[in-house]
């Protein structure tokens, strides 16, 4: 199991498009993935699950991935957060 502390760094937060990108990145991996924010843990491969976090700009979230390709999945998600979901700001 790999755990990563992340901060939502795009202005719009984990809105629908950003969430869809996150889920699409993870769906290419076999490992289980969860995201935790404000004490709530959700399936990070579920669009509605991630949107239920209502994680806005600056929110700390914790990614947990568990499975054979967990390292690649964690790297891909960290990169997506660092790229601010390919959004302008």
């Amino acid at each position, binding site marked *: 199991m790999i755990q990563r502390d992340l901060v939502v760094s795009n202005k719009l937060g984990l809105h629908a498009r950003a969430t869809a990108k996150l889920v699409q990145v993870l769906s290419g991996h076999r490992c289980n993935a969860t995201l935790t924010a404000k004490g709530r843990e959700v399936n990070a491969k*579920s669009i509605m699950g991630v949107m239920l976090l209502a994680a806005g700009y600056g929110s700390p979230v914790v990614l947990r991935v568990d499975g054979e390709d967990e390292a690649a999945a964690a790297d891909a998600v960290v990169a997506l957060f660092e790229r601010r979901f390919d959004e302008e700001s």
Partner: protein
Amino acid sequence: MAAGILLVTHPGIGTALVAVATALLRNLPLRVEAFEVPFDADPEQLLPQASAALRRADSGDGVLVLTDLYGASPSNLAARLAHLGTPVRRVSSLNLPMLLRVLNYAELALDALPAVAAAGARNGVVLDDAF
């Protein structure tokens, strides 16, 4: 193994949902068609057009037909599509969470998709006055 998706809805609903899903996901992993039933339409006359939409959605593994309101004309028309030979499963109360969840489980066979769709629609309802 990839089912197709056909939205059979009231005017303005199906194409709008497909447009939003496409904006969010960019490439839709399944074939998605929308067929909107006009208010004053004769269901009898619409059947050929609706079945053409069904065939466009079908890539050989059947079609999940999603309707917006159970018992209304679009869902009654959808019920008739189930008797044309193409394997069809139907789920009503189409909403955006339902459509997104189905597209997130694109690898599943047709028979598994109704439960996926229903859970998506149900879980999308949030009594949103916490905080």
